[in-house]
């Protein structure tokens, strides 16, 4: 029910020397679910706060539904927001905290009651409605903060790491709840998270930020499969993508004494066309694209590299292997069945069809 | 209609008094007012507002000041004796000679305190006096026989008084005399100026224009030396304890007529009586303090006749009698003395007599508050005998200080 246009927005805090957000340009469609990700301190909260109207916009225009709102007071923007640090009203009970926004809007008592109890049910807070925030656990507080925003039915929904203090199970169900709310109410949503699963599953589009600048905007798959640059590639995916500064030599990527692997023809053609033959490129390959299964190793014997396992972490369904090829470190994610003891040597097959290539200087994706 | 309303307004006299309407004095006044409203033949109606004052004069006098400064004085008001000159000088009040009947019946001290530059500005409706209250039991214990006690005709001289103190102190091992030296308000000049006058000294000259030559005279000094002597010898104290006399700590207590009632109601077991002021051995002249609150007409009174009639009524024989009787205070009119004395106890009778015989009004000075305070400071200075052993020096300095306030 609302579009949001951020036109080249800049933000510098009063006492700060540097811009916290630089040239932020993003056009959010009605009913879209946008997720902001980026390293700590990259300006996610700041951007959200500007949209909410809590921070002045230093430069640029912000439009909601096509109307410039740089100067509109937060209360007139009709936005619901979950704060990163909850910002609960300490003197009100959980119920009152959630009801406050509705009370202000003069919603009748019965409706308030219904909405709040419904939300409390969803959030598992029914037992705590009469408590004050100080008597809640961290996760309970966070759920109150979420509930306070949910009950509002606002056309725009801003959430700043709303699930960070919840356990995995609750997270999953909350995540589903948020997705459902989004589908039911068609709320335009901006969601800040550092949880990749959340980002991947919830987002229509993900915005990857770094140092106050947008690095890439795209659907989760796009971002995962075609990262715009080395930063995005490294940031998305856990464990992170492995990077190797290689030489492109005669259709092969060559890493000093470590390996020399043939590049699939289609990809090589593109690289060669752009003049990288004989030059340095950064090879990026995700941990899950290095295979230890016999099948793969047998099929692509040339792609096989020997690596020494340094650490081996078993995570239920899969195993993460921290290995070394000569001096180069890499992580690979293999099936739990292929658990290997540290110190052993293992054969890894690089699936270059799924690899990315970056310019060594600009670090932009070449393909 | 409109005109009768106006007439009614003109016949209404507003009045401010310094007491609470719940006090005996306030009640007596209310009664007087209702008599006045009923009995006066001109249809005057008096309306009173009761504005209780605090000891420092706060409240009532602040209110008068404020009214003066915003032109909202009532027609009739009460004022303390020493304020007469200042109020008359500033034209806050106006002469009332022509409204007051039977002036010759007024005690001379009353006339004196209400007169400024030869005109009567205010009439007192009561008198006050101070005496030395003594504890009979303690006197007996100290071996002072009744025959040694002074009378109005044969008061103790200061020397005799000092020797009595000495005996009391030696026998009882206590401070013999409390004269409220810690009270540096009006009390000081009111209670101690009689010593000065007894020695034929003075504070200012009779036209209130000079203090030098009077306040620093040798006669004045003799009185202050007497006070200093009392302190130095330990016969009195700079920091007396509250109700020390009443609870038998001090054998003698210099205080006003109001003490009688307190002793009678609260300290029934104490056996006491009152003695006259000690006198200067040179003159043997008995002098006692006087002074009281008075009625006056404000300069802005709308209906002077009505206001005059009210003042006259309240200060009249009947009006003042009503008040004085209710209060148990000294009468302001000679004709009331007998009536009041009739039902009064011996102490009261004694004070009335002392007042009649020896009452001395305080000087009429425009800047009276400053003079009064300077007097109190002088008393204080001489009682700090270690710092200021030389009484003459203190008086010289203080006389000069006073002179500044005299025009």
């Amino acid at each position, binding site marked *: 029910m609302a579009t949001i246009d951020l036109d080249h927005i800049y933000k510098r805090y009063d006492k700060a020397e540097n811009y916290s957000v630089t040239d932020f340009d993003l056009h959010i469609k009605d009913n879209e679910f946008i997720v902001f990700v980026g390293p700590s301190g990259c300006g996610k909260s700041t951007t959200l706060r500007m949209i*909410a109207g*809590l921070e002045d916009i230093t430069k640029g225009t912000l439009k909601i539904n096509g109307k410039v709102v740089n100067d509109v007071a*937060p*209360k007139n*923007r009709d*936005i*619901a*927001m979950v*704060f990163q*640090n*909850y*910002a*609960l*009203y*300490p*003197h009100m009970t959980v119920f009152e905290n959630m009801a*406050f*926004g509705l009370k*202000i809007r003069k919603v009748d008592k019965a409706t308030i009651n219904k909405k709040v109890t419904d939300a409390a049910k969803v959030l598992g807070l029914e037992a705590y409605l009469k408590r004050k*925030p*100080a008597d809640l656990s961290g996760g309970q*507080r966070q759920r109150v903060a979420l509930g*306070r925003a949910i009950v*509002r039915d606002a056309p725009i929904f801003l959430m700043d790491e709303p699930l960070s203090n919840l356990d995995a199970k609750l997270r999953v169900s909350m995540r589903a709840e948020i997705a459902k709310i989004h589908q039911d109410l068609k709320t335009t949503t901006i969601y800040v998270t550092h949880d990749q699963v959340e980002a991947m599953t919830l987002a229509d589009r993900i915005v990857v930020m770094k140092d106050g600048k947008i690095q890439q905007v795209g659907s989760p798959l796009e971002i995962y499969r075609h990262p715009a640059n080395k930063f995005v590639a490294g940031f998305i995916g856990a464990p992170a993508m492995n990077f190797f500064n290689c030489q492109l030599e005669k259709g092969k990527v060559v890493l000093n004494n470590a390996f020399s692997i043939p590049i699939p023809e289609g990809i090589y053609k593109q690289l060669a066309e752009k003049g990288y033959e004989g030059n340095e490129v950064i090879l990026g390959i995700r941990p899950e694209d290095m295979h230890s299964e016999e099948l793969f190793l047998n099929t692509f014997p040339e792609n096989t590299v020997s690596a020494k396992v340094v650490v081996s972490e078993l995570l239920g369904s899969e195993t993460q292997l921290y290995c070394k090829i000569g001096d180069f470190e890499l992580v690979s994610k293999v099936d739990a069945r292929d658990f290997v003891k540290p110190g052993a040597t293992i054969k890894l097959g690089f699936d270059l069809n799924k690899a990315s290539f970056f310019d060594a200087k600009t670090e932009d994706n070449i393909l | 209609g409109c005109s009768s309303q106006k007439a009614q307004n003109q016949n209404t006299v507003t009045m401010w008094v310094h*007491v*609470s*309407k*719940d*006090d005996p004095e306030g009640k007596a006044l209310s009664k007087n007012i209702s008599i006045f409203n009923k009995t006066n033949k001109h249809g005057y109606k008096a309306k009173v*507002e*009761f*504005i*209780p*004052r*605090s*000891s420092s004069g*706060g*409240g*009532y006098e*602040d*209110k008068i*000041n*404020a009214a003066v*400064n*915003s032109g*909202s004085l009532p027609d009739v008001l009460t004022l303390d004796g020493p304020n007469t000159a200042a109020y008359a000088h500033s034209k806050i009040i106006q002469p009332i000679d022509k409204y007051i009947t039977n002036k010759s019946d007024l005690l001379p001290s009353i006339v004196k305190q209400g007169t400024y530059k030869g005109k009567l500005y205010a009439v007192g409706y009561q008198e006050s006096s101070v005496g030395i209250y003594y504890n009979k039991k303690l006197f007996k214990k100290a071996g002072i026989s009744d025959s040694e006690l002074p009378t109005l005709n044969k008061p103790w001289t200061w020397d005799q008084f000092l020797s009595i103190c000495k005996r009391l102190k030696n026998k009882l091992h206590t401070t013999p005399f409390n004269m409220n030296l810690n009270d540096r308000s009006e009390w000081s000049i009111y209670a101690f100026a009689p010593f000065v006058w007894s020695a034929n000294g003075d504070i200012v000259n009779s036209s209130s224009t000079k203090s030098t030559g009077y306040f620093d005279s040798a006669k004045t000094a003799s009185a202050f030396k007497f006070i200093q002597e009392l302190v130095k010898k330990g016969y009195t104290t700079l920091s007396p304890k*509250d*109700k*020390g006399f*009443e*609870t*038998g700590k001090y054998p003698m207590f210099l205080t*006003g007529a*109001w*003490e009688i*009632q*307190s002793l009678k109601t*609260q*300290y029934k*077991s104490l056996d006491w009586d009152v003695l006259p002021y000690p006198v200067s051995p040179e003159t043997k002249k008995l002098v006692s303090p006087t002074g009281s609150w008075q009625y006056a007409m404000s300069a802005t009174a709308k209906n002077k006749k009505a206001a005059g009639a009210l003042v006259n009524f309240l200060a009249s024989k009947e009006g003042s009698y009503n008040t004085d009787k209710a209060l148990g205070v000294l009468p302001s009119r000679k004709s009331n003395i007998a009536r009041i004395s009739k039902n009064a106890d011996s102490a009261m009778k004694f004070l009335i007599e002392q007042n009649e015989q020896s009452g001395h009004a305080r000087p009429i000075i425009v800047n009276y508050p400053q003079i009064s305070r300077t007097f109190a400071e002088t008393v204080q200075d001489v009682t700090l005998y270690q710092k200021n052993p030389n009484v003459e020096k203190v008086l010289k300095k203080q006389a000069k200080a006073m002179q500044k306030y005299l025009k």
Partner: protein
Amino acid sequence: MSRKKANLIFSTFLIMMLALFFIFPLVWMIASSLKQEKDIYSQMTSIFAFLPSTNPKDWGVAYQQLFSRFPIFRYILNSVVYAISLTAGSLIVNSLAGYAFAKFDFWGKKALFAFLISLMVIPGATLLIQQFQVAKQLGILNTMLAVILPGMSSPFAIYMFRNAFEAIPANVSEAAEIEGAGSFRIFWSVLLPMAKPTIATIGTLSFIGSWNDYVWPLMVLNDSNQFPLQVAITNINNTQPVYMNQVMALLAISTIPLILVYAFFQKYLVQGLGSTGNGDK
């Protein structure tokens, strides 16, 4: 455990002594109002000074005399009305101003605040006449307004409120703002309840200030039916002869409401904020 206990007993003893050192006049006042005047002074130097009369018959005497002397209830009612109105007014007016100074960047704010602070130095006691002249000009003499308005706004209270509001983390008011609360609503529903300790403090102090004021109400009121209790106190304390037990009884009557008001507001002072919702200040 036992050392802890010993510590507790020891500190309790010390603090108790200290407390007694502070409360003895109150005890003395109440004890004195419950005995005959002569006992007040004869017992002055003994422990009995702090105990009521041994004869319970004496207890009510001073109070009885007092009530027959003054219409105490009327005075108390007046005092209560003035004190409550002034306190309520002072809380509203000053907290609003404190809010503005803490949370808005209006033009001239700094200068105005500095000016406000400097106003604290003006000794009100010396301005009675001028204040009266102003009140007369406004035509509010002889009304309750004249009694309560001058004491209502106080730079000190504004200062207190500003500090309290500044201590509240910004994001709480931001949350309310996003939820659609207007400036006043934020103030009223969110910030003010969080400033309870300050409300309690300013409330207590305003109430006491108004309750103890004597000269000003007397100056601006003419009808003795409108006088506050302090007038009776000053009166009884200055009309010879002074009956100390009655004075003490009246002072006790006047002081106990203050203690109650204080104890009541105390609740909010203990309660405080606890920890803010996020503990993140």
